[in-house]
């Protein structure tokens, strides 16, 4: 290949990337606008985008949106939309990273126990820990869920390292299976001893965006930001991982160390969003596959597209979540799985997706 050819292919690739990112960015923007505009209460949907423009400095439009209506959009709906974006984007990019690091298309961000640990932590906080944590300055449920989530993944990693001497992808996944079962058993036991909180815990496990507040958004955003930056910096390594551990090592990648960094970063973000919004299924599993089908399976492009696509997906999925049984809520986990499960079966039947 001549230098000129290389230059041509490089520029073509760069242009395609820019187009992909622009499309994903547009999708996300539309999702945010749709999410912010449609709800069971508040102003007519078409007034909301106008009102956003009106609120910009130096712009004044008479949109007919009252203060009470704006209050509903800005104080109640907006944090829900933004939290949905953070959660959906984080789960998708973490899911894509996990799938890459373990070279396994069936992997989701909960694989190593992030979700089971958070569930156990939340159950603990709602049951035996309730009186002990009553005086805490911070909300104990997300705090304990977050810590338990990180601890559980750490235990999985330690256990995985002691089996067979090396932390290969397979031993880690198997360790994850064992640790998840153990955490789930503990959670079930705690729950069985405290059946009065079973509805609260069940609610938590189903996952929700319904109670989202600005505080939740502020709580989660820094973790998601750090996690996403680290994952994005390592996305080229994930492409190298595709050829296999040994081959990656011969290409100069420190396999064990890189895998640890990626898993830690993905887990940090996952633990943060899970501790606030509960276990929202299928986003982390299915969105990366959708992106692969549309834009190819190279991780350099897959990760940013998963981030934006996942954010848009969950924001849009939450719209039926609040409108389907209006004014009652449909749990978001039900909506995502309802869309995700049939789609996943379709994928399995019709395509061979290369990871």
């Amino acid at each position, binding site marked *: 290949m001549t230098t000129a050819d290389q230059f041509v292919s490089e520029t073509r690739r760069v242009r395609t990337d820019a187009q992909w990112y622009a499309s994903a960015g547009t999708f996300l923007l539309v999702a945010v606008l749709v999410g912010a505009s449609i709800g069971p209460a508040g102003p007519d949907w078409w007034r909301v985008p106008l009102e956003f423009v009106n609120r910009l400095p130096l712009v004044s439009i008479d949109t007919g949106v009252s203060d009470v209506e704006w209050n509903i959009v800005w104080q109640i709906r907006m944090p829900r939309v933004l939290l949905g974006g953070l959660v959906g984007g984080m789960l998708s990019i973490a899911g894509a990273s996990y799938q890459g690091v373990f070279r396994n298309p069936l992997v989701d961000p909960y694989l190593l126990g992030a979700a089971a640990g958070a569930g156990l932590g939340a159950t603990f906080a709602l049951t035996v820990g309730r009186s002990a944590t009553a005086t805490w300055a911070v909300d104990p449920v997300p705090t304990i869920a977050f810590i338990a989530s990180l601890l559980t993944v750490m235990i999985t990693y330690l256990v995985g390292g002691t089996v067979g001497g090396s932390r290969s992808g397979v031993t880690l996944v198997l360790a994850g299976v064992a640790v998840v079962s153990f955490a789930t058993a503990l959670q079930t036991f705690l729950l069985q001893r405290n059946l009065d909180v079973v*509805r609260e815990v069940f609610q938590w496990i189903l996952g929700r965006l319904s109670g989202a507040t600005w505080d939740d958004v502020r709580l989660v955003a820094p973790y998601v930001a750090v996690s996403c930056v680290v994952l994005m910096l390592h996305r080229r390594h994930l492409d190298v991982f595709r050829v296999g551990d040994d081959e990656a090592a011969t290409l100069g990648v420190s396999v064990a160390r890189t895998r640890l960094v990626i898993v830690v970063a993905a887990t940090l973000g996952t633990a943060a969003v899970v501790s606030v919004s509960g276990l929202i299924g299928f986003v982390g599993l299915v969105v990366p596959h959708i992106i692969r089908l549309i834009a190819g399976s190279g991780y350099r492009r897959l990760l940013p597209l998963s981030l934006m696509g996942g954010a848009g997906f969950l924001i849009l999925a939450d719209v039926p979540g609040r409108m389907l049984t209006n004014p009652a809520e449909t749990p978001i986990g039900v909506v995502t799985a309802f869309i995700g499960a049939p789609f996943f079966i379709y994928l399995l039947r019709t395509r061979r997706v290369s990871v």
Partner: protein
Amino acid sequence: MRSTERRTTRTTRTLVGVLAGLSLVAAACGNDDSSEDTVGTDAPASTEASAAPNAPAATDAPGATDAAADEADMADVPERVVSLSPTHTEIMFAIGAGDQLVAVDEFSNYPPEALELPNDLSGFEPNIEAIAGFEPDVVLIGGDFSGVGEQLAAIDIASWDGPAAATVDDTYAQITQLGELTGHVDEADALVASMQEDLEALIASTPVPAEALSIYHELDPTYFSADSTTFIGEIYALFGLRNIADEAEGSGGAFPQLNAEFIVSTNPDMIFLADTKCCGETVVTVSARDGWGDITAVQNGAVIEMDDDIASRWGPRVVDYAAAVAAAVTTAAG
């Protein structure tokens, strides 16, 4: 989960359960006449047939039931009663049958005397062996979802099932039945009469504004609520209040999870918090929620902290709950 159970109960099980319970009582007492009387009073004929499948434990297992019946015959009234429901525990004490209780379930915390009884039993996942250990003459069940009655019958222990009431009348019926079961008929009748009187007096003395006041009943901080078809919802309806959860009819069952935007835009005149004990919600926490500051109830100080326990039971203290509602309505209307 509890709400789901109550919903199921309401639609299908109430009469069936009551009847099944009655047939057990009848078997235990060996007195067919009294059972027919009670069944005849408030059960349509059609439900009698549906009660049959629930009753075989009492009627079809010859050895077991005969033994139980003989024993009950000798004792006349049960001397050792185990209650698996906080509501039934409250009723037992209120009709003067408290000293017949030998053990109660883990949530039976009222009246204070109940706390002096052994209270490790679970009413949700009853352990038959643990119950049998108290050698009860009869076990009171608050909604038999897992076949406890049958299991108990298999080891010659009689049981009575009084599932979650859907109306105050159901509560009266259960009080009457427990009175008959435990030999406190007069006290039970007196309790029902005084509850009826008190409720009527409360309703008569509470103003009804020209435009009905709207209320939001909060079951937990994720905005689960209860509509007017529920037991607790009926209390609000008695005072002519408009329950905002009724607008979710057909979409969330009787205990819908409401959308926050909907609650704020509906702008309820009063908010009743039935999540003070479980979840630590208060006037302060509700007022501090994003976007809730403008709600009329918050502005007017009409956020009322209720007792979760009373709100989730269907016992005699429903009158206390109604009194608190009446006081709040009087304030809000004045």
